[in-house]
């Protein structure tokens, strides 16, 4: 206790110097934690949007379909498959899709697109496209008329169409014949992924199946939404076991970039903080070396009267840790407030984030800091303190008490 008391009071012998070091730790930690929180928020938003609007948690395909997206490789008895999947624990909603490649053309331009035939109400339960309509005049398959389509804002601009404009889509039917149909734009959507928006248009599955002459009760894709994203790892094997004849993939298999981004966030804090703690470690070591040098006589005296090496190390370690942990505590509190405030209200970086959406990132970020992040930082601060204590302690213990007293 006396050792801690000495260490604590020693810190305040040089209030300005100690405060500067603590402030540096606070700023460093806040910098690291805030950057991590922003990156995490960006990535998690992207992953969430991707899963919600595009890939879902799990997808089922005919094993031969993904190679060339050939129309004939379908999932047969798709409604029975869906019924079975709905009964699996953890499954929230299931929908089926017909998905083909085609050419969308208007009077001014033609472009290649992926035409996704959806069952509007089922799709609504699985993906969030219906929430992404931008034009107030548009609707999400509310019209009872045939051949309606949803097109992205980006594509609409490119094709120069608006609500109620007609777009001709041509594609090969089930028998390989070139066919086509005219679709009227019913809604215009915008997700946070420009690439997705440029490539995909949505139509009713019933319309597409009819034009393609698809076999009844078949689909190219079944998308599954789970109660929680994390459950993918447990539900996936169950469904795989149920339908070994199909290709069943989790979101991380379908879009490995998402998996990579998610795992990257786990190491981001470690990388950021390691660099920051290394720099702060040097600041603390430098300060503590000064402290040892200034207190040569005092240290010599305490060693002379019987303070052993362990206690000398303890004293220096406590001082180092106090310098680090007071700053760290403030840094953590400020970071937590930052993450809490902007996590709830969003951090709008629209003005300096042109191009973010091209890569699927949102321009309103919700920073995320988890309990494990704080624990990681606390552990790192502890070890930085421990390591930063070693060098000054070695210097202190190298002193000969009888010489140090005479300094």
């Amino acid at each position, binding site marked *: 206790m006396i050792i801690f008391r000495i260490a604590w009071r020693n810190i305040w012998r040089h209030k300005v110097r100690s405060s500067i070091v603590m402030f540096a730790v606070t700023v460093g930690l806040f910098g690291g934690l805030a950057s991590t929180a922003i990156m995490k928020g960006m990535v998690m938003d992207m992953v969430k949007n991707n899963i919600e609007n595009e890939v879902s948690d799990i997808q089922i395909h005919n094993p031969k379909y993904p190679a060339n997206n050939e129309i004939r490789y379908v999932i047969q008895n798709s409604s029975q498959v869906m019924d079975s999947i709905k009964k699996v624990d953890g499954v929230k909603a299931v929908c089926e899709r017909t998905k083909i490649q085609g050419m969308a053309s208007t009077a001014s331009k033609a472009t290649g697109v992926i035409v996704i035939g959806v069952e509007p109400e089922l799709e609504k339960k699985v993906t969030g496209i219906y929430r992404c309509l931008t034009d107030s005049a548009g609707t999400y398959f509310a019209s009872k008329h045939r051949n309606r389509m949803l097109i992205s804002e980006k594509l609409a601009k490119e094709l120069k169409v608006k609500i109620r404009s007609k777009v001709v889509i041509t594609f090969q039917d089930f028998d390989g014949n070139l066919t086509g149909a005219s679709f009227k734009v019913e809604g215009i959507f915008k997700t946070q992924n420009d690439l997705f928006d440029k490539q995909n248009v949505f139509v009713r599955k019933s319309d597409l199946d009819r034009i393609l002459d698809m076999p009844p009760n078949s689909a190219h894709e079944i998308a599954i939404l789970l109660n929680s994203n994390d459950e993918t790892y447990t539900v996936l094997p169950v469904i795989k076991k149920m339908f070994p004849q199909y290709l069943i993939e989790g979101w991380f298999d379908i879009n490995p970039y998402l998996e990579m981004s998610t795992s990257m966030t786990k190491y981001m804090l470690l990388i950021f903080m390691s660099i920051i703690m290394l720099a702060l470690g040097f600041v603390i070591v430098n300060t503590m070396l000064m402290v040892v040098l200034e207190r040569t006589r005092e240290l010599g005296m305490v060693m002379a*009267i*019987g*303070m052993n090496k362990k206690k000398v190390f303890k004293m220096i370690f406590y001082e180092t840790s106090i310098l680090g942990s007071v700053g760290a505590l403030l840094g953590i509190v400020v970071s937590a407030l930052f993450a809490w405030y902007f996590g709830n209200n969003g951090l709008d970086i629209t003005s300096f984030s042109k191009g973010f959406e091209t890569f699927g990132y949102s321009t309103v970020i919700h920073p995320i800091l988890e309990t494990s992040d704080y624990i990681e930082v606390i552990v790192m601060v502890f070890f930085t303190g421990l390591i930063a204590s070693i060098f000054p302690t070695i210097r202190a213990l190298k002193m000969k008490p009888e010489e140090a007293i005479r300094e």
Partner: protein
Amino acid sequence: MKKETKASSPLRGDKRGAPVIIEVRGLHKTYTETEVEVKAINGIDLSFEEGEFTAIVGPSGCGKTTFLNMIGGLDVPTSGKVFINGTDISTFSSSKMIDFRLNNIGFVFQAYNLIPVLTAKENAEFIMQLQGRPKAERDKRIAELFEAIGIAGKENIKPSRLSGGQQQRVAVARALASKPKFILADEPTANLDSKATAELLDIMHELNRQEKVTFIFSTHDKRVIERAERIITLEDGKVVSDIIVNI
């Protein structure tokens, strides 16, 4: 009236016939760090008995402090042996030596060397705390000592707000608190005025008598020499006289 007795060789203090607590045999210390070899201690044989009040005197550079460092386990002899209560401490490892100093030796330094961030009481009980003595025991001992050395009421004052004499009293209290076998005081009065010196010497003499603690001073100060009961004079690292003074 003082009666002076010259001790025979090997020089021994036998004022009271008390048990010997420090004994040095063939002590040499040679410094070779500089180009010129310096023989700081050049063959000393001495012993000190329990309850002595001894001054080691001599000109600057005669080896007083080096000798004190040897018997205090702060420095290692080049050759020779130092026995404390019959144990040869010159063979101790540095860690064992630190523990030994903690439990057996009290130090009083010229520049007081109190810990500036601790109060007078905390400074005085510091060694007892390092020894892990319980609070009640510490409180009782410090109260007794502060009363005895005349600084009762100054317990919660930091060293920077105490006079030099008061600081040195606290240093004496710190040295005595854990009841060591002997106290080594290196020029303890060098920074004090006459009044403070006289008071401090009175206190140390009184404690020497009451607590039977051995005091060994290294000093230039005539006032200390006058109060010493044994005066050992060193020159060029050798004992040139060892006088028992019967007061």
